[in-house]
């Protein structure tokens, strides 16, 4: 597990850019954290790292957005979903094992549906400064070859 601390939105976005730059085809990123933790800000950075030109906006209401980039970004949000059945109806799995990078906000609402191999990111308001500082806990599930946490640490801690 890698712990990164961000003291600003800009820094969160920069961490996202590093994650996006390192992401490979088929990477699924489960993004968790309470309302206002900065999940969409991190997703904006990830999109930039993937070479996405469009503005990434919150998918809470529309449930999913697709952005073309170096790799396509499939941006999901489980916030508004109430049960797993609704989710299956959306045909999500097609994207999990597809050609792009998947970012799922509020992924921990339905952990059972996520692929076993994934990058998990938990965003928490830092206890010392809950207004503007965030702790990011990044870890790999299922496979250590999926993504290089070492490389992420190197890039983010320069």
């Amino acid at each position, binding site marked *: 597990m890698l712990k990164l601390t961000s003291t600003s939105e800009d820094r969160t976005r920069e961490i996202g850019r590093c994650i996006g730059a390192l992401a490979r085809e088929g990477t699924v990123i489960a993004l968790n954290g309470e309302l206002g933790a900065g999940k969409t*800000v991190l997703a904006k950075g990830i999109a930039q790292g993937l070479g996405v030109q469009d503005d990434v906006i919150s998918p809470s*209401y*529309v449930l999913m*957005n697709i952005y073309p980039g170096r790799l396509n970004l499939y941006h999901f949000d489980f916030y508004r*979903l109430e049960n797993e059945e609704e989710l299956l*109806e959306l045909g999500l799995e097609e994207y999990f094992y597809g050609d792009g990078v998947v970012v799922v906000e509020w992924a921990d609402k339905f952990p059972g549906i996520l692929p076993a191999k994934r990058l998990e990111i938990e965003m928490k308001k830092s206890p010392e400064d809950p207004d503007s500082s965030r702790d990011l806990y990044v870890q790999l599930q299922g496979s250590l070859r999926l993504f290089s946490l070492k490389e992420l640490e190197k890039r983010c801690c320069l």
Partner: protein
Amino acid sequence: MFDEKGEKMGHKTLILGIETSCDDTAASVVGNGRDVLSNVVSSQESFHQRFGGIVPEIASRRHLEVINPVIDEALAKAGFTFAHLDGIAVTHGPGLVGSLLVGVSAAKALSFSLDLPLVAVNHLEGHIYANFLTGATIAFPLICLIASGGHTSLLHVKGHGQLEVLGRTRDDAAGEVFDKIARALGLGFPGGPVIDQLAQQGEGEKFLFPRALMGAEGKLDFSFSGVKTAVLNRIRREKEQGKPLPLNDLCAAFQDAVVDALVEKSARAVEYLQPRQFLLAGGVAANGELRRRLRLRLAPLEVEVIYPPLEYCTDNAAMIAAAGYYYLRQGRLAPYDLNAEPGLDLENP
């Protein structure tokens, strides 16, 4: 088919509108693009009573189950049958692909089997046409603010199908932050009406929440995630002090921040382009404070402010039928290989 001569002689051009872009399945019959003869939405109480209970609406299978009954009901309520129709209008995007496909497939099947023209309507453009259902005379060019749960956009509408996006949200939609703050305050869903109500008894000056992108660099774009986080931080701090939440004041201050941004950017667009009319659309158009403040702010700018009736603010098919009527008049027909376009853009319809 559109029949100008017939219309002059009193025949009403009847369009069946179908809308399934998000949660609701909706159908409506509209005459001459402005007379709503029926407006059926699957989340309506009356519909649920007949079809048994509220079920999750997100699933496309749900759309599939109710699409035919919703269309039948729209025709029955209007007092017409398929044989009376002059055209079929359907939302083909943006939205969820599975949900859109149900409406698009139904519309194509009806169009083909009844030999009726098919028109494809952009969901967001449809919201603008909710204002054609007010009885007011709409004159281009105009400016329209669409604010809903999924979208917040400021548009320059130069004519039917001629749109320019002046600004849009860079993160959360206005309706979305209302819903999220309402949930954080334990006020239930949807958040807009209850916050609007509580805010009336509160004092917005008690808290100051940020208005984002108000400088020149923000252009006419919006950003609401900052105010969302600031309100959440305030709620946390109030809770830490162990006192009861000052609900009314929080709602008032939060609503002030969101409404301020919407009103200010709208006013700038009006000052810049000097249209004769300004239209409000989308679910947030139901917000009383937004309506009041817009009217106040825009009054000196000599622009007529028009709002849709409340039932046409949220997603409905009447607005799609109204837009479809004008598309049909322009001969903008959709081919039978029409597909659902989840990422449909406003400027390239």
